[in-house]
C-alpha cells in the first residue's frame, strides 16, 4: 500500500497502523455495498429493472437532480465568484449561511421548504397562478434537492475562483477586457475544474436526497423514496434490487462525467 513507508528495508510501524486503520474504513464503505450487490441475483435485478415504476423513479431522480443543479448553478456560480473576490461587511455571516443546509437535519429542511412553497405561501400562490405546482410535483422535488445540495457547489466554486490568481484578471482588464469578458474568458475557464467538481457533488447529493424530498413530494416518487417505500411495505429483500440498480446508475454517471471532465478541462497547469 502507498502509505506504508519503508525505512532501511523495515516497515515503519506508524505507517502500518495507519494503513490498517485505512483498510478498516474502506471495508466499512465497501462491505455493505458489496454484500448487498452479491446477495442480489441477476434475475432479481432484471425483473426489478423491467418494472415501469422503478424506471420512472430513477429517471425522476436523475432529471430533477440535474435540472436543479443546472438551474441553481446559474445564480450560485456568480455568487461564489463574489464571495471569492469581494470583501464586504457580514461576509463571514454569508459564508456561514451558505453552509447552513449541511448542518440542519434534512427532514427539517423539507419541512421548512414545504412551508415556503405551500399553497398558502406567497411563492406557492404566485407559482400556482403561472401553472407551476410545487407540492407533489417535480418543481418541489427540485427545490428540496437544491436546498440541501447547494453548499457543495458554492463552496467548491468559491475555492476554485480563489485559486485563480487575481493578477490574471488584472492583466485581462489591462488588455481592455470588460469585467464580464474577464469573468467568462479568464476566471470561469480557470476555475472550471473546481466548479465541475462542485456541480457533480451537488448533483450527486441531490440525486441521493431522501429526507427533504419525502416531506415535500412523496409522489411522484424518486428512486430514494421508492426504495424506502419498498422497504417499508415489503421488507429488505424487495428494497435491495432497486438499491443496487440506483447505485449502479449513479456510479455510471459519476464515472462518465469525471472522464468527460478530464478530457475537456483546461485548468491552470
Amino acid at each position, binding site marked *: 500500500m502507498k502509505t506504508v513507508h519503508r525505512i532501511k528495508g523495515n516497515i515503519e510501524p506508524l505507517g502500518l497502523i495507519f494503513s490498517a486503520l485505512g483498510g478498516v474504513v474502506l471495508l466499512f464503505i465497501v462491505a455493505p455495498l458489496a454484500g448487498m450487490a452479491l446477495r442480489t441475483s441477476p434475475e432479481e435485478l432484471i425483473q426489478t429493472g423491467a418494472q415501469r415504476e422503478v424506471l420512472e423513479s430513477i429517471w425522476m431522480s436523475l432529471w430533477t437532480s440535474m435540472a436543479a443543479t443546472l438551474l441553481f448553478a446559474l445564480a450560485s456560480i456568480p455568487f461564489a465568484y463574489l464571495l471569492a473576490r469581494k470583501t464586504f461587511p457580514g461576509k463571514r455571516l454569508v459564508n456561514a449561511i451558505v453552509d447552513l443546509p449541511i448542518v440542519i437535519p434534512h427532514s427539517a429542511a423539507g419541512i421548512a421548504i414545504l412551508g415556503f412553497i405551500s399553497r398558502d405561501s406567497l411563492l406557492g400562490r404566485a407559482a400556482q397562478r403561472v401553472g407551476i405546482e410545487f407540492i407533489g410535483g417535480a418543481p418541489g422535488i427540485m427545490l428540496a434537492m437544491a436546498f440541501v445540495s447547494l453548499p457543495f457547489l458554492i463552496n467548491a466554486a468559491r475555492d476554485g475562483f480563489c485559486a485563480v490568481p487575481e493578477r490574471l484578471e*488584472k492583466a485581462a482588464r489591462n488588455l481592455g477586457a470588460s469585467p464580464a469578458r474577464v469573468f467568462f474568458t479568464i476566471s470561469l475557464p480557470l476555475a472550471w475544474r473546481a466548479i465541475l467538481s462542485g456541480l457533480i457533488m451537488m448533483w450527486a447529493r441531490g440525486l441521493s436526497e431522501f429526507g427533504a424530498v419525502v416531506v415535500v413530494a412523496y409522489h411522484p416518487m424518486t428512486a430514494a423514496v421508492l426504495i424506502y417505500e419498498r422497504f417499508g411495505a415489503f421488507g429488505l429483500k424487495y428494497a435491495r434490487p432497486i438499491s443496487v440498480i440506483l447505485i449502479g446508475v449513479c456510479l455510471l454517471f459519476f464515472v462518465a462525467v469525471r472522464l468527460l471532465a478530464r478530457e475537456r478541462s483546461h485548468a491552470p497547469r
Partner: protein
Amino acid sequence: MLRVRDLAKRLGDFSMRNVSFDVADGGYFVLLGASGVGKTVLLETIAGLMTPDHGTIHWDDTDLLRAPVQKRRMGLVYQDQALFPHKTVHENIAYGLHGRKRSRGAARERVATLADDVGVTDLLDRFPETLSGGEAQRVALARALATEPRCLLLDEPLSSLDIQARSAMRALLRRIHRNGHTTLHVTHDYEEAVSLATRVGVMENGTIVQIGAPNEVFHHPKSEFVARFIGIRNFFNGRLENRDCPTENRDCPKRATDRERDGTVPVCSDRERDGTVPVFKDGATPVFPLGRFVTDGLAFLIVTDARPGPGCVSLRSEDITVSRTRTDTSARNCFLGTVVDIVPARLGVEVAVDIGVEVAALVTAGSVERLGLRCGQKVWVSFKATAARFFEG
C-alpha cells in the same frame, strides 16, 4: 507625456506618498527601488487597477483617473508575465485585439507581426507552461503591444531571466523603445537602468528621492540610500573636518607628516598646508573646497561643499587605483595597505585592501595578473578627492 503628481496610496502597512514624475513622449523612465517599496502598486495605480488615495495621473491633457481601466491604454507587463495558462501563445497575444473592430484575418496578421517583432513566431501554438522565462516575457510584451498602448508599464521585466535571456531582452526593450514607445520601467537592478533609461528615478520608503539623467544620478547620488542602491561598495562613516582647509591651513597639520610617510594619512604638499594653493575664484568663492574626512583608522581628503560634521563618504570601487609602487598622479589620497581579499566580480576583479579601513577596488583580471596581486601583499591605493562623495548626517 505621462504626468504623475502627488500620488499617494496606503495599503495596510505599506504606503506610497508624494510620488511625482513625468515620462516624456518616447522617453524611457526607469524607476529604481528595493523590493516591496511599492513599485508594482504604482504601476497598477497608473494602469487603473488600483485607485490612489490622493494625486493625479494625466496623459497629455487626459485625466487618466477618470478613465476606466480598459480605456487607459497603459500596457502593463507583470514581472511574472501573468500569461493566461489556458490559452495558447497566439490566443494570449490576440486577447487584447478583441473588440478593436478587426476582422479575423487582420487580427491574425497583427499577431503574426507582433510575434515576429519579439521573436516568438515558432511558439504560437504552445501553452505558456511550456515556455522558458525569456520566451514568456516576450509573449507578455507582444500581448501588451497588441493593444497599441500609449505607455508601456514594465514591472521588473528582466528579474526572472537568466543572464543570456536578460541581455537578449534588454536588446529587445531597446528596439521597442527606438520604435517610439514611451516606457515606464520599474526595477531594483541599477544596471537595467544604466543600459536602458533616458531618465532615472530612485524610490525609497514609498516616495521618489531623486530623479535625473542616469549619469547624473549615478555620479551624483543625493543620499546614502541612492548611493548604496546603485551599487557603490565603499562606505565610511566618520566626520568631516576643516572644510576649507587649504585656505585656512588646517587640513594636514605638520605633525601628521610621520603618519603621511606611513601612508595612514593623505599626503599633502607644503603649499597646501601653507594655504598657497589657489582655491579662490575672484578672491571670493572657494572653487574646490577640500575637506578632511576622518573615519575610524583613516583620514583623507575629499571635495565637498558640506559643512563640517558627522556623515558618510561613498567611493565607487572603479574610482580606486591599486599599484605596486607609489606613483605620482593627480590623486590626492594615496595609502599603503595590505591586500586582504581578491574576489572575481561581474565586471572584473574586486581587490579588498586594508588601509586602516577596508576599501574595495575594481580592477581587470589582467591587472591582477600583471601586478601579481595576492593576499597579504603590500600595495598602494589611491583615489582622487573628487571621487569621494560626502553625505551629511
